[in-house]
Each structure stands twice: as structure tokens, then as C-alpha cells.
């Protein structure tokens, strides 16, 4: 597998869409199995460290071999999307399990996301997911940046390089997107009751 993955990554990097989605699918599977092991019966918000999981998945899938920064970065790109979906799925599952009573929210606690947007720590991950989707419709790059930083654990510099933008631009995008999301989510929070944004 790991040999194939390196090839897939090379092709994805060259712009091959089907290779990119294959990487995504593979990353998704791997991440989910790792996450399942980590999460067995435990509470998500204390044990799920997105960065750690993504890195673990990378090592398992590609091995420790030298694959070059671009490959690594490309993998994280896919893995951070996968991570986002896993967290969202997980939140939905918990929402279903607890429906009808009590707190159904999954929070973006510091433990879960190394770069939980300041002020967003106690917000609903589903609401964040939806807000991110809205952001992507307005500005794909900003949404991607948030995804990379929140779910892929990339530093500002790495994310900037991967997105092909300057560090300065990344830094402004980041503070802009965070402010935008915070506003977006605080509006939502006011409008919806607890758990209101969780679809069944």
C-alpha cells in the first residue's frame, strides 16, 4: 500500500483529480480506524487530537521513508478534509445517541484542535462545519486554510506554502477568517437553541 500511496500522492500533486480522491479515501479509512481505536468508549473532546491522529495516519500509510515535503503536505491536505468529516460524523452519531436529552454538542476543545479558533472553543463542531462550508462558497482559499490549520495541524507557514500564498497573506487570511467564523457562529448560536443545528 505505502508504495502505491506515494505514487498516488505524486499524481495528486501533478493535478490528477482521481488520484487526489483516492488519497482522500485512503486517508479517511485510515484515520477512522485509528480514531475508532482511540475513541473506544471515550469522550471525544479529551482524547481526540487531530494533529496526532493525522500524523499517525501518515506514518502508517507512507512509512518513515523520505517522501518529500510536497507529498507530506499533500497528504495532510487530504487528511485534514478527512479529519473534518470524521469529527462531523462522530458529532452526528453522538447527537443521535443523545437525542432527546441533555447536551448534544461536540465542542472544539483545546485538546481536540491545536488551533481551535480563539473564542470558538466551546462551539458546536457541526456549526463550525456548516460555517466553513459557507465560507468555502465565498472564499475557497480561506476555508482551506482554516481546515489545514484546525484539522490538519499545519502551522501558518506550512499552510501558506501548501496554498501557494505568502506568509503575510496567510496570516491576514487566518485572522480574517477566524473573525468571520466567530461572527457567523455567534449569530447562529443566538438564533438556534442548544443542539438546534444538529440534523437528525
Amino acid at each position, binding site marked *: 500500500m505505502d508504495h502505491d500511496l506515494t505514487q498516488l500522492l505524486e499524481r495528486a500533486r501533478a493535478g490528477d483529480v482521481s488520484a487526489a480522491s483516492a488519497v482522500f479515501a485512503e486517508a479517511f479509512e485510515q484515520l477512522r480506524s485509528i480514531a475508532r481505536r482511540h475513541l473506544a468508549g471515550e469522550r471525544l473532546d479529551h482524547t481526540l487530537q487531530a494533529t496526532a491522529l493525522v500524523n499517525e495516519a501518515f506514518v502508517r500509510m507512507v512509512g518513515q521513508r523520505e517522501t518529500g515535503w510536497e507529498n507530506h503536505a499533500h497528504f495532510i491536505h487530504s487528511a485534514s478534509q478527512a479529519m473534518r468529516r470524521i469529527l462531523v460524523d462522530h458529532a452526528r452519531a453522538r447527537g443521535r445517541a443523545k437525542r432527546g436529552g441533555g447536551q448534544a454538542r461536540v465542542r472544539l476543545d483545546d485538546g481536540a484542535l491545536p488551533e481551535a479558533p*480563539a473564542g470558538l472553543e466551546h462551539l458546536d463542531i457541526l456549526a463550525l462545519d456548516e460555517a466553513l462550508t459557507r465560507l468555502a*462558497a*465565498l472564499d475557497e482559499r*480561506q476555508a482551506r486554510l482554516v481546515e489545514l490549520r484546525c484539522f490538519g495541524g499545519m502551522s501558518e507557514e506550512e499552510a501558506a506554502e501548501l496554498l501557494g500564498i505568502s506568509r503575510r497573506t496567510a496570516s*491576514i487570511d487566518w*485572522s*480574517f477568517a477566524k*473573525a468571520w467564523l*466567530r461572527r457567523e457562529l455567534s449569530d447562529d448560536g443566538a438564533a438556534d437553541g442548544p443542539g438546534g443545528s444538529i440534523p437528525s
Partner: protein
Amino acid sequence: MSAERHKRLRALFEAARNMPEQDRRRWLDAICADDPTLADDVLALIEEATAGGRARTQAAGMASAADPDETLFSGRGTPRARQQEEQPRERIGRYVLKQKLGDGGMGVVYLAQRDSEAGGKGGLVALKLMRSTVGGEEDRKRFLREHRLLSALEHPNIARLLDAGTTDEGHPYFVMEYVRGVSIDRYCDENRLTMEERLGLFRKVCDAVHYVHQNLIIHRDLKPGNILVTAEGEPKLLDFGISKLANPALDPGIEVTSPGFRLLTPRYASPEQIRNLPLTTATDVYSLGVLLYELLTGHWPYAIKTTEIRAIERAICDLEPEKPSTAVARTEGMSPDGKTGPMDPTVVARARGAMPSKIRSRLRGDLDNVLLKSLDKSPRRRYQSVAEMAEDLRRHLSNETVRARPPSVRYRVSKFVRRNRGAVIAGVLLVLSLAGGAAAASYQWRRAETALATARASEEAARLAAANAEAARARVAAIAGAMVGDIQSKIVKLAGSTPARQDLANIAIENLESLLAASPHDSSLKLELARALNERGQAQADRRSASAGNPEAALQDHQRALQIRRDELARDPANREIQAEVATSVLRIADIYRMLGRASEASAHYREAIDRLEELLRSGNTRGVRAPLAAALAARGELAINAGQVDEAVAAFVRAQEIRRVELAEAPSPRARRNLSVGHLDLARAYELMGDRASAGDALDQAVALRRELAASDEQSAEARRDLSRALLEAAGFHLRTGGAAQALPLAREADAVLTKLLADEREGAAQGQDAADPRSREAWITAQLSIASALGPAGDQEEARRRLERALEEARRLVTGAPSWIAGRRALTRVLAELGEVESRAGRHELAAELLAEANDEITRIESLAEPDAIDVKLREMVRAGRERVRERSSGGAAPPN
């Protein structure tokens, strides 16, 4: 919300987030006039971003000392009254901050007091804390060095710089004499100063500015807010050189935060500041002109109805200032805070203690002339110094004749024509050709076609009508062609004609396309269209054009033209004319690829162009073929050198020289001779890379010989003398690189002699304090001194080397002060510093050597902050690094200087 709006939100967020709060609101309101909710959203987002950031810092339990914005400006967001009650108790350096005086784009100004520990209560001072930071230890040293220069300024009308330093966080601060006063414009209006009093006050400002210019410092940010008037009526200038000192890469007049957004309204910025050209003291003359204009008329020199920053910039660069005597009667104007609105001429006049008609007649004549002269778009046509301007005002006040003359009608007309040459010629010819030719022709054509349609009955009539239609159409095409060809070639050489060329080509293309729609198989029309496309492509690729060229669009035009021409050639393969046109198209495309840095595509096209042109040449077609062929070969060689294919480069250069020789033999001209000498220099470089020193030396000798002839045949031409010195210095450099210091020395000395004479000639008769010599000549002279010093080497006369380098250093510093963002000047300064450091180090003066090399290092950093460093800068950095290494070795080893 649309993506479009989101994008705008993001851009405004970036531009506004670091502005002081009160400016931010105002600025956003002005920018978002079309969508007020946008301004609210931007403000909310900025608030969210800063509030969130602060919450996080506190949550993380971090002491918020890292960011002075957090500690010093902690009053931010609290009500104004409270903010004043709780005066910040902070200290900076030896100063206790007492009160915030103001908040500007670049920093915050505090009223402060020198600490009593240092002996007795200090007096009150103004302390300006900059938002920018200075980086490492070396930046800091440079900062202090330059600050010493400024603190030496002493003049009764200049607020003295008392102290400067950097906070622990790296923010520079300046301590200035505290001036109690109001800005000069407010002072004048509030005290209802008469025109005479305003002029008197302004002359004092001129004295102060002139004093600073004599110290080789340009203010660059003269505006009412920087000129306070005390209760005693004394003007005091603030902030001389400070903004530049704190942030050398930024021009304060035009503080750019993101493309398209400029923080400050550049009302007082000069055209050269807007265009980001090298600045001289003439830039301050211009800003003073705007200031005096406003003090006297109450209006900005350009009557524009919007305060949109681009409109302001366009006005500064393109509009002629209105005569002050006319402007004073405007009923609409820009208030000091930059808003436009109705303005009452009687109010303006009353503030000057007179009736409007009185003010108008007071301005008419002398003052009109003085102001218009100081506001000329061309720095050279302005007053050559601030003193000269002040002198003219004195003459005016004592009823002597002023030097500034009203522009004569002839001058004005010629200036208009000069400025709008392309448009004027195009306009005149267009009108003439339409009236006399095309209109008539197309009318006939249409009539003939109608005749053709209605006269089908008569075959004979139809044949006649068709012939008529054909003849008429041919005339339309010919006229369109003439417009594109002849007129274009006439205006192509004129600076600033590019937009006109483009318009003209657009008109031609439009007309030709509609003609083609009527007769799609007409090959002469198609070829005409290709010619027009070719012209528009050339205009779009022109880097002198206002939009700095649009090579991609140019490429499309050329490719379309090429396609048409190839098709036509396929139908008529023996047609020499079309062959030549295909070659031209290919060559243009190659040029654009080269401009875009797409080397392999450029090479391929050059190769095709060369093949086609050679083919034409072989078939005996020489007219207009040789020059493009030589140019294509030279470009091809250049690309080959960059690609490391030196053999190919030599082959191309050699062939180019053959062609140039024939050209020169057939039509001898200085131009042809110069072309040949350029070719020799190209060849020399290629041979040197190849390792063929003998051939490189030969080629250099020939280049030098040709340029000696050229310089001797036209002694007036500065260009020819500069060319000669360049060839000499190239040759000297070559010998230095290849171990021939002995051969290099006489060449470098000759270059020195040529340049010293050239500089003396250029400077002759120039006004004092103004360096009339071309910066390129000065830079070459510096290079000559460097070459001589290198050629003298460790064994040569060290005294001469030092003397020359010290003079070169002086010149280089002046050059850099006059044109701080000119990279070639900065490179020259760096080289001199490094070379002088080497000489001093050899003489055992390690400390001095280390200092010089440290400054050289600073310079490189500065160069790199001004532009993307290229190979030359990499080499320079390496040279300085090696120099510092040697100094360190020599001083630590205590080795005796080698002899």
C-alpha cells in the same frame, strides 16, 4: 453575501486593521460610500479579531508585554473621558509618559518627561513611538547612526530631535522638542491672517526646509500637520526624515498597505512620489507648493469632485493645476480633512481678511506664476531649490519682478501637444482621413453596393458597380492601413503615446473586422488586420505604457496576427512581403515570451524567426531584414548564455556581428557603429564564459576602440561618453577577473578621466545644492574608482586607493541620499564600503574595517528589502561575507598587514 463582497471585505479588513480607530471609521466611510453596511461589517470584523486576540492572550495567562499595542494602548476601546483620566503610567527608556497627544498612521505621540533620576526634573518632550519595528542588532546600529545625523540639525524653525532609541520589543521611538502649537493651516484661518502674513509665515517654513536640504535630507512628508505654529507665531517643522529613518523601505507620503489601498490621502505627495520614482529635494518644493496654494486660495490645486484616492493620484500625475486666481472662486472644494463639499468663496476670502475680488487680483500674475512653477509635473522645471522659491516670494513682496514666468501661449500649446502628441496626431489625422478620405470612400462604396443590388438587371451596370465597390473598398483598406502603418510609426517613438497607439489600433481593428465581415475572403484586408493586431500587440507590450504593459494580451494579438499571416502565406507561398511579415510576427512573439521569462518558448520562436529572416536574406531581400535579424540573434545568444549553452551563444553573436558589419558598411551611422560595439561586448562575455580569454580580450579591445571613435566624433553626447566609460570598465573588469591587474589599471584610469570630465560638464552651471549630474554617470564614476583601487591591489599605492575610495564613498552616499530606492546606486555604495573595508583591514585598522563592512552588510539587507535579490546581490553578499571573514581573521590573529 456574494463572493465579490467577501473579497472586498477581506481587502478592506487588511487595509484598515492597523489604522487608528478614528481614522479607520472615516476612511471606511469614504471608501464604502456605495455600501455603508460594508463599513460596519469591516469594523465588526476588526473588532472581533482584536477582541478575540486579547481574550486569548488573557486566557493563556500570558503577560501581555510582548505587544506594545496591548500594553501601551490599553485605553483602546474605552471611553475617551476615562482614557484621559487614567493617564498611561508607562515609561519608555528614560522617559515617563504623561499623556497621549495624537495617534497617526505610523505611530503614537505622547507628551513625556525625562526621568528625574537622571538629574533634576527634565522638561516636557514629545515622544513618538513608531508602530514599525527594527530587526536585528545591525538594523538598530544603523538606526542610531542615522539618528545622529538628524539630531545634528539645529534651526529655530525645526523641532529638534533630542533622543531616539528602540524599546525592548524593537519599536523605534523619537524624542523631540515639545511644540505647543496648532497646524499651520488652522493657525492661518483661526487668526485670519492676511495674504501678506501668510506669505511671511510660509517664507520662514521655506528657510527651515532649505536648511535641512543643505544637510542632504529630504523631508518627503511636508503637510500642514507637520508644521505647527506656536502662540508666538513661529512655525516649527516636525518629523524631518523620521518616517524614512524608521522605515527606510516605505515612503510615508504614499503608505501602501495592500495593492490598491493607500492609507493616507496623498494630497501633498508629488507626482514622482506617486509614481515611485527616485526622489530629490524638488519633491519638497512640490509639497510646499501645494501647501502655499492651499494657504492662499483655500483650495487644492486640482479641481476634482471625488476624494477617491485613485482620482487624487491621477490628478497629481496627469492634471494641470488650476491657476490659483481662478481656483479661489471655486464653489466646491476639499476641506482639510479631505472631504469634498460646497465652499463659499466669500468665507475663504473673509478668513484672509479681504473680499473675494481683492484676493483674486492679489493672486493674479506673480503668485499664479510662482505657484504653478513650484507645482510643475517635471521636477526639473520647478524651482531648483526651496531658497529660490523663497527668494521669488521675497521679490514679490517687495514689488520686484519675480523669476517665475507665466507659460507663454506657444509654451502651453507645445506642452499640450507634447503631452498629448499621440492623441493630437491621431485625432487630426483621423478627422482628416475620415473627412477627406475614408468617409468619402466608404460612402461611395456603400452607394456602389446599393447600386450593385438594385442594378442587377443590367449586367453591364453591375460590372461597373462592382468595380466601383472594389475600388472604394480598396481605398478604405488603404486608409486604415496608412493609419496603422505610417502614423503609428511616427508616434511610436514619443513617450506617453502608448495609449494613443492602442486607441488607434483599436479603431483600425474594429473597422477592418467590420469590413472583413462583409468580405471574409479578402486577403489584403486580412493582412491589414494582421498589421493592426501587430501594432496593438506592440503597444500593449510596451513597458512604458501607463498600465505597465499587458504582455499576455499582446501575445494573443501577435498570435492571432501570426495565424492570419501563416494562412495567407500558405495560399501564396512565394510572396516575399508575407514571408517577412510572418517572420516579424514570430519575432514579436519571441520577444514577449522572453519578457515573460518563458525562455524555452522564446528560444524556439527566435530560432524560427532567425531561420525565416536568413531565408529572406538569402533570397536577396535585405530591406528591413538585417536589423531585426541581428536583434533576434543577439536575443537568442543572450538566452543561450542563461541556459548555459555558451557555444550556441557565441555562434549567434558571431553571426549577429557579421550582419551588423554589412549594415555598417552599407549605411554607416553612429547607431550602426554603436550596435556593432554592443555586439562586441556580448561576444566578450560569451568568450570569457567559454574560457577563451584571448578572443574575449580582442572583442573588448574592438568595443573600446569603436566607442572611443564614437565619443570623439560627438563630444557633446553624454551618452557616447558614458558608453565609452562602460566599455572601458567592462574591459578593466575582465582583466581584473583574469589576473591582469596591470592591463586593467590604464583602462580604469581612462574611464575615470572620461567620467570625471563628464561629471564636471554635467554639473557646470547647475544651481547650488542640486546635483545636475546624471546618476548613471555618477554610478559609473564610482565604479571607475573601485576598478582603480582593485587594480592597484595589495601591492599598489595604498594611499591612492584609500583616497579614491573615500571620495567614492562620499559620492555614493550622496547618490543614495538623493535616490534612496535606486538599486544600482545602493549596489555601488555597498561595493565601495566593502572595498574600503578591505583596504583599511590590510592597513591594520581592523575596527574601522569591521565598521565599514558592517555597513556594507546593512546595505545588502536594505537592497534585498527593496527588490527581489538577483544573482548580482547574491555575489555582493558573498563578497561582503568573505571580506568580513578576512577582517575577523586578521584582527583575531593579530597578523601584521601583508605587504
